């Protein structure tokens, strides 16, 4: 006899610890054999074993049919086992479930209440839409059973049937709600359970039950049920705010009297839910509110102080809820909550953290963040990330409303950046850049701090050890921000007394004190060299491409900054600049051979630009002659374009002071580089483009010129010159595509008038693009929005440019003042950032450089170097291009897919109805809806007999007969929609959901199928009726 019971199987599995899987697969073969046998008992044993194996994770789908076979066995013991198996194994896709319909029907009528109970239990697990539809009447009739045992199970089973078949709710709900008055408490409790669950989906349906529930709340003593009633009540609150005032006192009474912590907590929870709604229409609060709030706070405090961790957790959760309506009361417990941050349990710590972030005010921000920082050091995992997120959140929320000291914040961010593993790197990066751009006063400090980060070998090393693994973490992000800030504001790095005193003129400050300090401290170029070599070291080559690209780009900025800084030192300064540029060029070489296209592109561009400016000579100049020729051409070009009046002021001064006369040309070239980055980065809203009016007569679709090359060389230049000299032109140069240098003739235009669709300015690539645009672009639309009206006088306002800029900055909401203390913040906040006091170089006179007319030359230079650069790179690029990189018609594919499969969002059909869509109605509304439905049935019979299929009309008939039988319940709007076909129904639902989009949706659905149009029209008529209530 090879009969093997479940016990044998379990023992067998335990005895075969080594080769469990092979034992199980052997057992499975036996089980399959047993299932096919005719012996009922054998089958029963097999089903038992299957239930067990399924729990162990074995796929037993094949057995579904056999389970149903056993379900029809004469012995209840067998049936019960198979029902259990079905409940465990079947899912909504098990097709054979349909076979059980009659079996279940029969068993439901069983005289043995335990049999009926078991089958109800099984049904509540395996119910599918079809089963629910066919059996809901049977189950509903069991609500009137004489036995409470059956009644309560029927109630709970009904809930599952509603979930599967929402249309069943209106049919049977009236019988269900009668169970609230049941003589047996457990039945009432189950009913409350079900209604509670239903009301979560659509509370409005159950408002009418509130008085009855309120009665139960005040009289019952069953804690299980009370919890549910309290839950149910609080889910009704948003629908009926008046309930809140009524609930307060009975809930408070329970809070005071009950011994059960669970009920106590539930009531407090409900009170905190109710508090936001207690205000009367005239705005006054009921008298009891303060007393109740302090009662809740006291109870919650007891919870938090309780040694039981569970209560501590719930106490914190409760306080979080209470904080929403009464933050002050909760803030009193700050110390206690801070204690919880040291708890062993991470769940408790998380809650305490959430609570703390809500407590932050302007006054205690620094205090709280310092405490959090202490915890960051020791924390790990998700909790640490959460800590960092919260620190950043409290500091930056509401546009830094709580923050008064930005330098402190920068140092906090730097401290966070040093955490091992650099969690949330991306977040820190965004914050750093945002603060530096928005808060002009903090820039010198930020630039110094960022230089410290760049020079910190530990960071780079750590990046090598743990390369960028996820999107959001990693040192790479921080280094990106560091390089950007340090180089963008490189000229501010030297701390000078002047700039510390006046919060306005960074540039002028340096100019004033440069010569005094120059002998003691290091030269700016040395500092820049240090930064550049940190950025362009070999170690950087292994970093993420976007960081490398940023490094390359920012190194170029450093060269520009050094031109700036060395200008007052005459020819010696120029030599240093040249040397520096040459060093940078050498360091850039490896990047020009990078495997990443962006990096390579940038490096090649930078090299071309440097060599074009005679600042750098490539070591392997195979094409030396051609280079020479182009250089000469350049010189000619420069001379031609830079008329004597256009030569920067500073260089003529140099010459006058006895510096090398020949250096004049060199300087002017270097000055061009300087101009490349001279402008300040101005914020551009992502929606700025929308605000720019398109100039009359501009047709963006019209080609500029027939051939691209001709366009580049001739007409463009002339057009540009004209516009620029007219003083109103806006010019954009894009690094993305060297050929797309496009001018837009326009009047005074603020930023954002960009030919690129600058959609994602958060992207680092775009950030740099923005960089390039504003620098090489319009001189005249410079600075900020507020100064744009004064465009015409721009040329004259050379000396006042900076002060005007800072003035306009003060008026611009984008920039944030730092309350004066930011700049002077003590360095000891920041021990790990080495700080050097440097000789500040002075700037050239900005006004001169800002002269618009020389832009043409610059653009020419740029475009030429671009062309050359891309030509150089093209060979390598071809190799580096991944396969299929050019094929990019993916967008159409998705559409095609949807067209083919016919399922876009909104194509709801009957199956997609959820409980939330079901609307229960009062008798009057039901009658109205019924009349409406009848009218529709009539007209649809008349008009659209073609479209309505036979089955759907049958359905319709049965529906209307049903609803006329019980006039109290009707399907409501959604139910009515069942009768209509799928498309019509979809539109009904859409109407219900957002009436605002009515017209649009209307158009959509009518275009999708014109034959449903009249159907839909009627639904429109029905709408206002159904939306009453």
């Amino acid at each position, binding site marked *: 006899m090879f009969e093997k019971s*479940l*016990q044998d199987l*379990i023992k067998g599995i335990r005895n075969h610890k080594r080769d469990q899987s092979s034992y199980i697969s052997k057992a499975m073969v036996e089980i399959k054999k047993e299932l096919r046998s005719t012996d009922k008992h054998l089958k029963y044993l097999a089903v*038992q074993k299957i*239930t*067990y194996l*399924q*729990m*162990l*994770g*074995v*796929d037993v789908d094949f057995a579904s049919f056999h389970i149903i076979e056993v379900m029809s066995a004469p012995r*209840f*013991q067998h049936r*019960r*086992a198979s029902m*259990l198996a079905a*409940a*465990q194994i079947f*899912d*909504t896709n098990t097709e054979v479930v349909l076979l059980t319909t009659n079996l279940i029907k029969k068993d439901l009528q069983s005289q043995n209440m*335990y049999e009926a*109970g*078991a089958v*109800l*239990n099984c049904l*509540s*697990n395996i119910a599918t839409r079809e089963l629910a539809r066919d059996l809901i009447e049977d189950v509903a009739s069991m609500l009137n059973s004489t036995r409470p*045992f059956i009644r*309560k*199970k029927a109630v*709970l*089973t009904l*809930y*599952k049937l509603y979930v599967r078949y929402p249309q069943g709710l209106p049919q049977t709900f009236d019988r269900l709600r009668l169970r609230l008055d049941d003589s047996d408490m*457990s039945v009432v409790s*189950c009913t409350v*359970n*079900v209604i509670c*669950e239903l009301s*979560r989906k659509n509370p409005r349906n159950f408002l009418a039950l509130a008085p009855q529930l309120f009665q139960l709340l005040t009289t019952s003593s069953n804690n*299980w049920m009370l*919890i549910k009633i309290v*839950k149910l009540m609080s889910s009704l609150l948003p629908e009926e705010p008046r309930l809140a005032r009524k609930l307060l006192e009975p809930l408070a009474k329970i809070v005071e009297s009950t011994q059960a*912590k*669970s009920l106590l*907590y*539930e009531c407090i929870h409900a009170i905190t839910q109710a508090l936001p709604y207690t205000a009367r229409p005239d705005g006054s609060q009921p008298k009891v509110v303060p007393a109740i709030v302090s009662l809740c706070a006291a109870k919650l405090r007891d919870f938090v102080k309780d040694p039981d*961790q*569970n209560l*501590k*957790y*719930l106490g914190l959760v409760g306080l979080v809820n209470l904080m929403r309506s009464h933050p002050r009361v909760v803030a009193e417990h700050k110390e206690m909550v801070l204690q919880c941050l040291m708890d*062993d*349990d*991470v*769940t*408790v710590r*998380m809650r305490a953290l959430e609570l703390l972030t809500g407590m932050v005010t302007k006054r205690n921000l620094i205090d709280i963040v310092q405490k959090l920082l202490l915890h960051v050091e020791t924390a790990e995992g998700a909790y640490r990330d959460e800590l960092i997120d919260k620190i950043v959140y409290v500091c930056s929320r509401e546009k830094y409303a709580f923050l008064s000291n930005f330098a402190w914040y920068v140092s906090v961010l730097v401290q966070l950046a040093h955490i091992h593993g650099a969690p949330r790197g991306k977040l820190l990066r965004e914050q750093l850049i945002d603060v530096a751009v928005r808060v002009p006063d903090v820039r010198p400090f930020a630039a110094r701090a960022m230089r410290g980060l760049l020079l910190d070998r530990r960071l780079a090393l750590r990046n090598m050890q743990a390369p960028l693994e996820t999107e959001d973490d990693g040192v790479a992000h921080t280094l990106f921000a560091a390089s950007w800030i340090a180089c963008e504001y490189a000229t501010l790095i030297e701390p000078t007394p002047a700039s510390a005193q006046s919060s306005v003129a960074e540039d002028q400050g340096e100019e004033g004190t440069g010569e005094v300090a120059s002998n003691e401290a290091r030269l700016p170029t040395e500092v820049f060299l240090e930064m550049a070599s940190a950025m362009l070291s070999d170690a950087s080559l292994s970093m993420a491409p976007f960081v490398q690209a940023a490094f390359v780009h920012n190194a170029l900025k450093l060269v520009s900054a050094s031109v700036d800084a060395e200008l007052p030192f005459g020819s010696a300064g120029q030599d240093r600049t040249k040397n520096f540029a040459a060093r940078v060029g050498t360091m850039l070489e490896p990047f020009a051979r990078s495997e990443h296209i962006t990096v390579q592109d940038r490096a090649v561009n930078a090299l071309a630009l440097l060599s074009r400016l005679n600042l750098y000579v490539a070591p392997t100049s195979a094409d030396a002659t051609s280079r020479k020729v182009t250089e000469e051409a350049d010189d000619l070009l420069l001379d031609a374009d830079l008329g004597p009046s256009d030569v920067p002021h500073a260089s003529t001064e140099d010459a006058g002071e006895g510096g090398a006369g020949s250096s004049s040309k060199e300087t002017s070239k270097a000055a061009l580089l300087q101009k490349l980055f001279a402008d300040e980065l101005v914020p551009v809203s992502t929606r700025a483009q929308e605000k720019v009016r398109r100039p009359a007569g501009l047709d963006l679709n019209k080609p500029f010129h027939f051939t691209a090359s001709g366009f580049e060389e001739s007409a463009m230049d002339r057009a540009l010159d004209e516009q620029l000299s007219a003083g109103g032109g806006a010019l954009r140069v894009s690094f993305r595509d060297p050929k797309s240098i496009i001018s837009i003739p326009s009047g005074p235009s603020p930023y954002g008038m960009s030919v690129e669709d600058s959609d994602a300015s958060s992207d680092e690539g775009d950030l740099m693009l923005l960089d390039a645009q504003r620098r090489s672009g319009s001189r005249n639309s410079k600075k900020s929005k507020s100064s744009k009206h004064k465009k015409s006088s721009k040329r004259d306002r050379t000396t006042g440019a900076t002060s005007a800029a800072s003035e306009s900055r003060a008026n611009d909401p984008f920039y944030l003042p730092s309350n004066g203390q930011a700049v002077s913040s003590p360095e000891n906040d920041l021990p790990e950032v080495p700080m050097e006091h440097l000789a500040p170089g002075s700037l050239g006179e900005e006004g001169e450089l800002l002269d618009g007319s020389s832009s043409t030359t610059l653009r020419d230079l740029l475009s030429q170097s671009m062309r050359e650069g891309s030509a150089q790179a093209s060979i390598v690029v071809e190799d580096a291009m991944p396969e299929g990189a050019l094929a990019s018609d993916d967008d159409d594919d998705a559409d095609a897919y949807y067209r083919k499969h016919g399922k876009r969002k909104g194509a709801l059909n009957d199956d997609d109805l959820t409980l939330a869509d079901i609307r229960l109605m009062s008798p009057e509304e039901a009658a109205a809806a019924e009349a409406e439905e009848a009218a529709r049935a009539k007209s649809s019979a008349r008009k659209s007999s073609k479209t309505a299929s036979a089955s759907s009309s049958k359905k319709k008939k049965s529906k209307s007969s049903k609803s006329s039988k019980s006039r109290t319940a009707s399907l409501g709007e959604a139910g009515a929609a069942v009768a209509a076909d799928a498309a019509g129904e979809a539109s009904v639902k859409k109407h219900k959901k957002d009436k605002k989009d009515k017209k649009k949706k209307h158009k959509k659905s009518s275009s999708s199928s014109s034959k449903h149009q009249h159907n839909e029209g009627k639904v429109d008529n029905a709408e206002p009726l159904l939306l009453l209530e």
Partner: protein
Amino acid sequence: MIKFVLMVNKQGQTRLSSYYEWLTIEERGALEAEIIRKCLARTENQCSFMENRGYKVVYRRYASLFFIVGVDQDEENELGILEFIHCLVETLDKYFSNVCELDIMFNLEKAHFILNEMVQNGHVVEANKANVLKPITMLDSISK
């Protein structure tokens, strides 16, 4: 509502599982493994609640066996669930008299029936030990 009830031992072996919301076998396996790993990582002096992938896990350990209940986030009273777990264990204890892991393992069906009497469809039906056991003992006597 209750989404699942698990009984898992310290080695991570599932002794009983009952789901009230359908999950595939793979999902079940992954979920059980993840939860038991988290439960084991927690110490006595940590609270019995965990938040995990959008639902709340309430668990309690009895000797070598973890009783784990997953509920909707914010929709179920945590203390109530703890109470329910205790009630379940007491009921099992009464039925098997001094219940141990092996009792549940070898009488899986019985354990399921008891659980089904207490929880149906994700809702607690009955928390009275006597009421829960009445049908079970009665059917036992019939089938013998």
